[in-house]
C-alpha cells in the first residue's frame, strides 16, 4: 500500500519536475551560461550586467566597448552571452523573478513592447539624442512616441544571388516579378535550384510573404492591418499566399524546406556548392556566415532587391528589414544611470561603426563609416529606400507572431490554403489586437 502510494506520487512528481513547470533549463546548448544567470540580478554599485546574444566579431566589438567604458567611466561591465532562442526564456523568467540584468538585448518591436507594457523597461526618451539615429532603427524601439532602447544594427533583406550562375545562363537582375519567374524557369531547366531556403525555424520563409504582400498591397498594408484599419485577410495577403504556393509548385525551392534548419547551414550549403542560385536572407546573417564559413564565396555574391509585381502597389525600393540588436535598460536595475550611459556609449560613432563593419548590419547611427563593400552599398540602398517594413514577427505581439510564422510555414508545406491562412491570421489578430 505504502509502496503503491509513494510510487504513484513520486513518478509523476519527477515527471513534472523534469518537464519544467519550473523554469528548469532544458538541455539547451548553452546550459552552462544559462545556469549562471540565476541570482545574478543586476550588478552592484559600480558595475552593470549586460545580457547579449552576439557571437564572433560582434561579441568582440561589444567586449572592446565594455573595456573602454570601464576605463572611461569607472563602471565595470559584466557581459553575459546567451544563445538566441534560450535567451528569450532566460530573460522572461529573470524579469518575472526579479533577477533581471541592468541592460538587455532585444529585437525591438512587439517582443520589447511586451516588457514595456509590463513596466519592466526604462523610458530613455530624455536621455538619448534621437536625431543621431536613423528613423528606421529608432522606430522599432519607440512606443507611443517614447523611446525604450538604443538600436545597434539594422539588417536589410535583399535577394542574394550567385553571379557566376547568373552569368552562365545569361540572367540579369529582375525588375519585375515576371522576370523573376522567368529566371526560376531557366534555372530549373538547367537543374539549378532557384532559391535556397531552410524554413524549419519559420522566419526565413516569412521574408517571401512579407515581400509579396508588400508588392501586392503596398507599404500601408501591414501598418493598416496592425492598427486594425485594414485586415490580415486583405486580398493582398491571399495573393501573396497564392504566389508562395505557385513558387513551391514550380520547384523554386529544394525538397524538405520546412525541415531544414537555417542554423545548421542547410540553405547556405546549397549556395556555397552552387546547387542553388538565390537566397532571400538578412544581410547580417548572410555576410557574417559567408565571412566565417567560405570567404571566397564573396567573389560570386551579389544582391538585388525583391522585384515589383506589375499592377501591385509596392515598389522595388521598399525594403524589409529589422533591428538586431537593440539594447534597453531594465526597471529592476540598481544602476540605471550607468546603464543609460552605457547605451549612449555603445551608440557613439566608434562602437557603432565597428559593430556595423563586423556584424554585416547597417548602422542605425547617422554618419557611420563603412569598410565592408557590401555594407556600404546596403547603406546606400537604405538611403534610397522609400519605406522599410520591419519584420512582422518582431513587430506583432508574440502570440500573433507565432500564428503568422505557423501559417506561413504551412503555406510552404501546402497544408493550408491562402484563404485559410489569411483567415486564421485575421481571427488571431482580432483576439490579440485591440
Amino acid at each position, binding site marked *: 500500500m505504502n509502496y*503503491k502510494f509513494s510510487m504513484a506520487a513520486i513518478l509523476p512528481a519527477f515527471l513534472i519536475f523534469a518537464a519544467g513547470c519550473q523554469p528548469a533549463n532544458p538541455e539547451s546548448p548553452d546550459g552552462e551560461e544559462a545556469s549562471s544567470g540565476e541570482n545574478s540580478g543586476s550588478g552592484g554599485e559600480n558595475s552593470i550586467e549586460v545580457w547579449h546574444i552576439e557571437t564572433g566579431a560582434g561579441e568582440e566589438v561589444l567586449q572592446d566597448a565594455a573595456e573602454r567604458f570601464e576605463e572611461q567611466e569607472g563602471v565595470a561591465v559584466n557581459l553575459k552571452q546567451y544563445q538566441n532562442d534560450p535567451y528569450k526564456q532566460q530573460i522572461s523568467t529573470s524579469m518575472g523573478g526579479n533577477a533581471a540584468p541592468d541592460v538587455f538585448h532585444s529585437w525591438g518591436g512587439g517582443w520589447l513592447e511586451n516588457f514595456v507594457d509590463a513596466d519592466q523597461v526604462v523610458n530613455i526618451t530624455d536621455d538619448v539624442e534621437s536625431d543621431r539615429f536613423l528613423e528606421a532603427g529608432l522606430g522599432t524601439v519607440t512606443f507611443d512616441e517614447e523611446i525604450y532602447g538604443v538600436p545597434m544594427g539594422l539588417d536589410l533583406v535583399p535577394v542574394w544571388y550567385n553571379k557566376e550562375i547568373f552569368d552562365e545562363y545569361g540572367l540579369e537582375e529582375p525588375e519585375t516579378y515576371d522576370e523573376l519567374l522567368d529566371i526560376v524557369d531557366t534555372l530549373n531547366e538547367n537543374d539549378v535550384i532557384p532559391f535556397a531556403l531552410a524554413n524549419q525555424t519559420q522566419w526565413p520563409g516569412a521574408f517571401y510573404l512579407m515581400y509579396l504582400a508588400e508588392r501586392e498591397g503596398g507599404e500601408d498594408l501591414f501598418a493598416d492591418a496592425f492598427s486594425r484599419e485594414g485586415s490580415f485577410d486583405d486580398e493582398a495577403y491571399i495573393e501573396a499566399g497564392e504566389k508562395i504556393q505557385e513558387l513551391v509548385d514550380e520547384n523554386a525551392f529544394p525538397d524538405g524546406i520546412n525541415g531544414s534548419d537555417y542554423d545548421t547551414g542547410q540553405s547556405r550549403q546549397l549556395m556555397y556548392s552552387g546547387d542553388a542560385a538565390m537566397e532571400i536572407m538578412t544581410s547580417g546573417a548572410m555576410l557574417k556566415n559567408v565571412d566565417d564559413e567560405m570567404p571566397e564565396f564573396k567573389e560570386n555574391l551579389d544582391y538585388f532587391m525583391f522585384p515589383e509585381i506589375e499592377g501591385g502597389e509596392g515598389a522595388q525600393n521598399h525594403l524589409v528589414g529589422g533591428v538586431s540588436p537593440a539594447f534597453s535598460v531594465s526597471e529592476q536595475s540598481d544602476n540605471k544611470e550607468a546603464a543609460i550611459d552605457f547605451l549612449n556609449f555603445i551608440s557613439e560613432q566608434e562602437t557603432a561603426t565597428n559593430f556595423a563593419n563586423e556584424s554585416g548590419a547597417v548602422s542605425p547611427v547617422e554618419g557611420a563609416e563603412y569598410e565592408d563593400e557590401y555594407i556600404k552599398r546596403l547603406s546606400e540602398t537604405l538611403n534610397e529606400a522609400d519605406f522599410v517594413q520591419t519584420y512582422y514577427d518582431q513587430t506583432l505581439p508574440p502570440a500573433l507572431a507565432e500564428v503568422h510564422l505557423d501559417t506561413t510555414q504551412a503555406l510552404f508545406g501546402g497544408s493550408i490554403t491562402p484563404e485559410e491562412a489569411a483567415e486564421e491570421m485575421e481571427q488571431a489578430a482580432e483576439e490579440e489586437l485591440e
Partner: protein
Amino acid sequence: MATNVQNKVNAKSREAFKKKNRKNWLVILGFMAPALLFYGVYVVYAIGMTFYYSLFDWNGIDSNMVFIGLQNYFEVIRDGVFWQASGNNALLIAASLLTQLPLGLIMALLLFSPIKGMRLFRTVYFMPFLMSTVAIGILFIYIFDANYGLVNQFLGAVGLESLQRGWLGNEDTAIWAVIITICWQFAPFYMILFRAAIVGISEDLYEAADIDGASAWRKFSGITLPLLRPIIITSAILSVIGALKYFDLIYVMTGGGPNNSTELMATYMYDQTFTNFSMGYGSTISSMMFIIAFIVTLGIITVDNKRKADF
C-alpha cells in the same frame, strides 16, 4: 492465514515499536531532511505553484495576474494543438514500448553470445546513449537532409529515388523521423538494464536446462524472459514516462513543426510559456501533463500489483 499469525505478532510488538519509533523520530527526520528539503522545494512546491499559476491569465513578467478560475482548462480541452500534441505523445509511447524495449533486449542478448570482439560491440551499442542530445539532434538533421542527407543519398544509390523526400520537412514523415532518432538514442539504455538483469540470473538454471536438453529458445522463453519480468515492467514505466515528458530532440530537430506535426505536450508548453508569453496557459498544459502522467502511472502500477497478487 499467514496474515492472521502475523497480525498477532504485530499487535504485541507494535507498542514497543511505536515507543522506539518516537524516540528515533528526530533522528530519522534529520537523515531525511536534505532530501526532503529538495523534494519539497523543487517538486512539491513547484507542482503546487504550477496549479496555482494555471488559474491565472498571466504573461509571466508583470505583476498583473488576473484570476480566471478554470477558464484555462476549458480552453486547453478545446485546443486542437494540445490534443494533437497528446496524440504524438501517445504515438511516442507506443513506439518506445514496441521498439526500444525489444531492441534493448535483443542487443543485451547479443552481448552474451560468443562473438568475437564483444567488448567493441558493447561500447558501440552503448555509444548513442552517451552522446549529448543536442549533438544527436544536429547529426540526424544532417542525416535526414533532403539534398545531401545520408538517407536520401542511400535511397538514390539503390535506385529508390521515388522514396526520397525532405524527411523532417514533410508533415507526414517528420514525426517518424524524430521517433526513429529517439529510439536510436534510448534503446542502449534498456540494453544496459537488461544486461544487468541477465547477469543476475543464476547459471544453475541454465545448467539444469542443458541437462534436460532444452533448446536455446526454450531456455530463453522458459528461464530468461520470466525472470526478466520485473525489469521489463520497470523499463516499461521508465519508457512510458520518458515518452510523456519528452522534449529535447523535438526542440532541436523540428521545434514542434512543420505545422505542429511533431509537437509534444512539453514542447507546446514551452512555446506557450516562453514564446507566446502565456505563463498561465503554459502552466495549465503542465498541469494537464501532470494529471495525464499521474493517471497513466497509477494505471501501470495497479496492473502490476494485480499481476503480483496473481503470481
